[in-house]
């Protein structure tokens, strides 16, 4: 069991160390994830979670939307 864990650890450790192209790809992945995380935090608040404290309040808000339709909320211009 321990030897299996050691082998698996060595697989990942040696694999990452020996990467050439992979290092560049991982850099791109990490930069992309950081940028996306920053964008999400700055610009993508969960509207219902941010503006309503409980599930009851969220449900009430959505129900209000459902029973009072916007005047122009339909499809597209043709």
């Amino acid at each position, binding site marked *: 069991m321990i030897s299996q864990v050691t082998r698996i650890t060595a*697989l990942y450790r*040696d694999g990452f160390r020996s990467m050439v192209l*992979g290092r560049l790809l991982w850099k791109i992945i990490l930069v992309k994830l950081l940028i996306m995380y920053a964008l999400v935090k700055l610009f993508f608040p969960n509207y219902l979670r941010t503006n309503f404290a409980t599930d009851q309040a969220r*449900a009430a808000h959505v129900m209000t939307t459902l029973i009072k339709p*916007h005047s122009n*909320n339909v499809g597209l211009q043709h």
Partner: protein
Amino acid sequence: MDFLSTVPWARAQFALTAMYHWIFVPLTLGLSFLVAFFESIYVKTGNEEWKKITRFWMTLFGINFAIGVATGIIMEFEFGTNWSNYSWMVGDIFGAPLAVEGIFAFFIEATFFAVMFFGWTRVSKGFHLFSTWMVAVGSNLSALWILIANGWMQFPTGMAFNPDKARFEMQNIWDIFLSPVALSKFVHATSSSFIVSALFVVGISALFLLQGRHLKAAKRSMAVAAVFGLVASLFVIINGDESAYSVAQRQPMKLAAMEGLFDGATRAPLTAIGIINPLKNVGDAGPDFLASVKVPGLLSLLATRQIDGFVPGINDLAYGNPEHKVVGAKQRIANGTLAVKDLARYKETKAKGDTQGATQALASFKTHQNDLGYGYLETPEAAVPPVAATFYSFHLMVILGTLFPLLFLVVLVRLYKGDIEKCTLLNKAAFVALFFGYIASQAGWVLAEVGRQPWAIQDLLPVGVAVTPIASGNVQLTFFIFLVLFSVLLAAEIGIMTRQIKIGPEA
């Protein structure tokens, strides 16, 4: 706040992120299997040439996978920000397949990915091959769950609306997981992705032949990819027939728009190609097409499985056709309006403690609930998707999809005859076809999602009600930020891929 302009920007942003994500997914789905095939041949024959081929395409697979990683997750965040009403209402149903995708399929991919790339000298040939196959299986399983979620949007089933929580609640998980629309979409999306990846391999191999290098590896890769692409094309054609029937039954307006069929007919013709009259509007009498080539009776056959079957047109579905028992959007708007009023009455009577009134309101709601979404449309014309975009994306996809198996066939014939290196025109066409594969693939999703409009959930929730009531400025800003970010990432991928292709499989 200008909620009106939020809707198109929210849609544009989702379309941008989805289309960008879909640049990477088809190649992941198909190239993973092709790599598994190449490696299987290597293990079976012991020929080191096949190992070089496997590692070359595996490297390109890895590049595509890495750049594509996390492009899909942005859409999940967009649900919460731009489509909050939608995400609240369908979270109980939508969340399950997305969660399963993340936990189950992704972990399979991630685990065996490491063995696939790091394990060439550390594990047995058999286990390494198994890992490569598991990456392919895991990738395609991811597609299954996502398409179950999208399939539910197109054909909502297995749920009931809870008016106290203002959300749809799952009633039967198997109705959702085994939805005929979901399964059909899965077969179609994966097999068409296999075609894209086959075109990719054939195209790059053709480039090698044109450049006079890596000839053996190129021909071997082409042979496997062309067979793969041809078999996948067969699935697409068979599944295409099933898809047409399914759309006709469950999304007849989408079918009518796909075909530019404004007035329904028995023995309805299939429009093979055409130019839609840009001045044509729903309900007016002008010609549907400026020019068209039609196949008599074929649309009736595909849509109803009877040559004399009636296929409703856009006008029938908008205004109704009592002769052919078509209930139009006009009537459904009346039904839906009642459903919305019943919901309001239910809320009001419940708040007052009027149990009997609430029960009556709920009972009345349930008789009209299937048309709930229509209660938010102002006119029957609002139930019609953009006809031109739906028509052209469908026909572009089909025309290109018809040409691809011909290309695979010709490639296989020339490989068999042993003179493919000399076929300059064929190799140039094969290289160009690589890009048309992506165009056809994107056209398919444009059709699926534009043809679904105005619905976020078919017949139950239009996009205008699904959207978050926020100012459009935020959505516009993030749209352009993503446009720049995605363009940079795409340029990076093309650059890295091009460099690896220049190195080639023999290095």
